[in-house]
């Protein structure tokens, strides 16, 4: 078994830890997971590195079931005695718990299909000096546009394994890298952000150029009145719309409890026909993740197809309650949060951002949302500010930067008013999404910058 240049303990070693943990459990059913890895982050502001950190950590999580009583314990050591204590704690909690009548069983083992590559050695090996060099490159590009750069460049690797007394044994290792920056040019701000499993896929110069140009172009913004505007939303904004739907409604638990906008709406039209959203943990354009916290392989789940609500994601608990199969979306943990979709895709269209701008008589080009929050989950109403580059579009052209605005809008209403869908997809957070042009987006306030 390859140990990826000594960075990883490897599948055999982690399997051993898990088997030993299962062997000491006195519960009827037991599930143990272990994660171990290293992550590093270089943070910069005012074009200097001001924070630079590294962490080596592990996590062990044990779910023990006695009858229908469930106990959950976590620790951060894989040392034999400590793991045993974590198992014993979970069993002790299960002993003292009350029955959870909705619990049926932990999931049965299922073969996990071969996933696209998730571990990239050059990412695991990236040094503090390498990170500093990239930041230096970015800062120089900022300076050319008269901007100062803030942001962070992070890389990390982790191996993760899940086993259960029902015979599940799943293992994967992965790397991740993330470069994000906000640049300031006097009164102008610009943002750019990229994520990838492979650090070679992070285009440092492109990120720097994108943010620097935005910052330079957004100097001396004018104030405009709030109201309804046609908006061109970058993938940074669109990811927030899709994530909002995932947080509030794409989980089977939220539907079962009646707090999801999908509850009672499956099979019905909930937004525009040009909107299709699905979750796929095996698509290399997104967050590849072959199995969930219970060791169940990820299924592709069609959430909204041509504007019609189709289905939601399940973990074993919510699936067994409905006599269904888990879709592989357990978040693990103590059980309160339910399943979660975080490898989502919004189907691309055929427009470019330039075409969206050219087709807009009067509207706004919005780079990014800030501090969004739910106002009414069933009505999918949320609020937030624009940030780091907001521009007025007049007669098909970007004419002036504008001061930031507050929006208060229903996500599903916005997704019913999509006029154009971008053809390029970008991985941002929990979703891989295109840019969108949305008619009549509702802005309810303004700020001073």
């Amino acid at each position: 078994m390859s140990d990826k240049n000594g960075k990883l303990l490897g599948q055999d070693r982690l399997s051993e830890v898990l088997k030993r943990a299962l062997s000491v459990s006195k519960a009827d059913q037991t599930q143990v997971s272990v994660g171990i890895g290293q992550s590093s982050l270089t943070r910069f502001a005012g074009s200097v590195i001001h924070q630079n950190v590294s962490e080596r950590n592990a996590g062990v999580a044990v779910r023990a079931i006695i009858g229908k009583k469930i106990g959950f314990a976590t620790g951060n050591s894989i040392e034999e005695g400590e793991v045993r204590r974590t198992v014993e704690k979970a069993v002790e909690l299960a002993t003292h718990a009350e029955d959870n009548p909705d619990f049926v069983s932990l999931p049965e083992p299922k073969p996990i299909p071969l996933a696209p590559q998730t571990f990239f050695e050059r990412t695991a090996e990236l040094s503090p000096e390498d990170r500093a060099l990239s930041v230096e490159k970015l800062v120089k590009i900022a300076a050319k546009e008269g901007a100062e750069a803030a942001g962070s460049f992070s890389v990390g690797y982790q191996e993760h394994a899940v086993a259960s007394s029902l015979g599940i044994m799943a293992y994967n290792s992965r790397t991740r890298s993330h470069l994000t920056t906000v640049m300031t040019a006097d009164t102008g701000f610009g943002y750019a952000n990229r994520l990838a499993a492979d650090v070679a896929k992070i285009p440092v110069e492109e990120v720097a150029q994108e943010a620097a140009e935005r910052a330079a172009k957004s100097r001396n913004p004018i104030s405009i009145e709030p109201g309804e505007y046609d908006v061109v939303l970058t993938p940074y904004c669109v990811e927030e719309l899709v994530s909002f739907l995932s947080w509030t409604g794409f989980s089977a638990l939220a539907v079962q409890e009646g707090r999801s906008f999908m509850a009672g709406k499956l099979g019905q039209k909930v937004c525009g026909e040009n909107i299709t959203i699905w979750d796929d943990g095996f698509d290399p354009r997104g967050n590849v993740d072959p199995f969930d916290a219970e060791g169940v392989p990820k299924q592709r789940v069609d959430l909204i197809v041509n504007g019609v609500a189709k289905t939601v994601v399940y973990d074993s608990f919510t699936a067994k309650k409905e006599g269904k199969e888990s879709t592989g979306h357990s978040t693990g943990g103590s059980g309160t949060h339910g399943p979660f979709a975080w490898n989502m895709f919004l189907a691309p269209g055929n427009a470019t951002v330039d075409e969206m701008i050219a087709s807009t008589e009067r509207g706004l080009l919005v780079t990014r949302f800030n501090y969004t929050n739910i106002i009414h989950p069933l009505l999918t109403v949320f609020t937030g500010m624009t940030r780091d580059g907001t521009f007025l579009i007049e007669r098909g052209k970007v004419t002036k930067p504008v001061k930031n605005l507050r929006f208060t809008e229903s996500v599903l209403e916005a997704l019913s008013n999509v006029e154009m869908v971008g053809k390029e997809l970008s991985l941002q957070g929990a979703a891989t999404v295109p840019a969108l042009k949305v008619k009549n987006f509702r802005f309810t306030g303004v700020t001073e910058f």
Partner: protein
Amino acid sequence: MKEFTERVLQKARDLGATYADVRIVRGASESISIKNGKVDALASSTDYGFGVRVIADGAWGFASSFTVTNEEGERVAAEAVRIAEASARLKKQDVKLAPVDPAEGRFESEWKIDPFEVPLEEKIGLLLDADKVMRQRPEIKIAESSMESWRTDETFASTDGSYIEQAKIESGGGIAATAIEGGEMQRRSYPQLGGDHAARGYEYVERWDLPGHAEQTAKEAAELLKAPQCPSDVRDLVLEGSMLALQVHESCGHPIELDRVFGTEASYAGTSFLTTDKLGRFRYGSDKVNIVADATIPGGLGTFAYDDEGVPAQRVDIVKEGIFSGYLSSRETAAKIGWPRSGGAMRADGWNRIPLIRMTNINLLPGDWTFDEIIKDTKNGIYAAMVTSWSIDDKRLNFQFGTEIAWEIENGSLGRMFRNPTYTGITYEFWRSCDAISGRGGEWHLWGVPNCGKGEPGQGAHVGHGVAPSRFRNVRIGVMESPSGESEG
């Protein structure tokens, strides 16, 4: 442990660090949550490790590990120095720190009943009692009750000669009832959203009498289903305590963090409108408004003996009779602004994070009104309680909050209930409109906020806000009079 810290600090010195500190943190937590009569989560967590922070070549480095051994200690110290040297590639000047007196000692927070010693059956039983009462109302589709306990043991040692041990126990809990019917969903929480927590023992859970408040909580959630939508208007606004605590948190607590002011959080949470030219001059609020950052008040989630740079806890004036007067600061930012000492607000979320400037207990000092007097004195307003949604711009000026519930105030008395209340404003305009602060009737309470987020990689902090219900004149309320889909409900 002293042998370990000495070795780590010596290794850092040997490799050229001009400053180093090491923190060893052991954390334990327990959480119990009950949903609709079932034990939804019964979880216990432990966490142990150490982190080494150094200045080498005039720049910062930090490394941490979950393996607390002498060998790993020296490896991690060396990694921290290497990282600092990489940071130095991009520096404009060397990091300078305001001086601190070396300190030694052991400190413990105050608690009467250790929550980890209370039998699980008793804790579960208390929550099940509250749960049962909430579910007697048929409209309540989700009844939730929960409690959390944390214990943290931390050792801090630095090349300045400090060796400080601190132990803290924190406890709290709460309930929430969610009513769902015909496309409408309304929630009420008690004593606030997510419960209330303090640096106290299990006695703090008991003091709230969760079962005794379950009926009223459920009743209000059910009644909200039928209540009219909060009108869109400009009216006088009276804020309940926990809502006001969040208002202080977002519009005062964050913008006074001196690292934000200097731009070091620009890429993530943002910066601040309270720039240094405003210090001592800017009218932040009306002359009724007095705000302090107090790390010394007993029982607060933001209370400690020493911060994570070994600086003693302090009480700092933030707003004095409406004038902006102070910041939350660190040794580095104090040196940068030219102060002789740090204000002692540096805290880290565990062993694997660097300390950042965090809120301590940001308290709005009590006023000379009673709550009843404020209501009696208000002709046309609303009384809004308990946060449900919060959003503010990245300089902390334009905010919008949603609350769980509001009541109309007409000619000095509380009237009908409104659902989906929201209010919005600009921070200093809002605080300048504050004309009545209660407290004379014993309304002042130190609320706990255990989920304040900041930094990259992300850190959570436990902070406190002491407030009493207060009145704000002419506030824009009801931002969406009829949110889309309202007619379907």
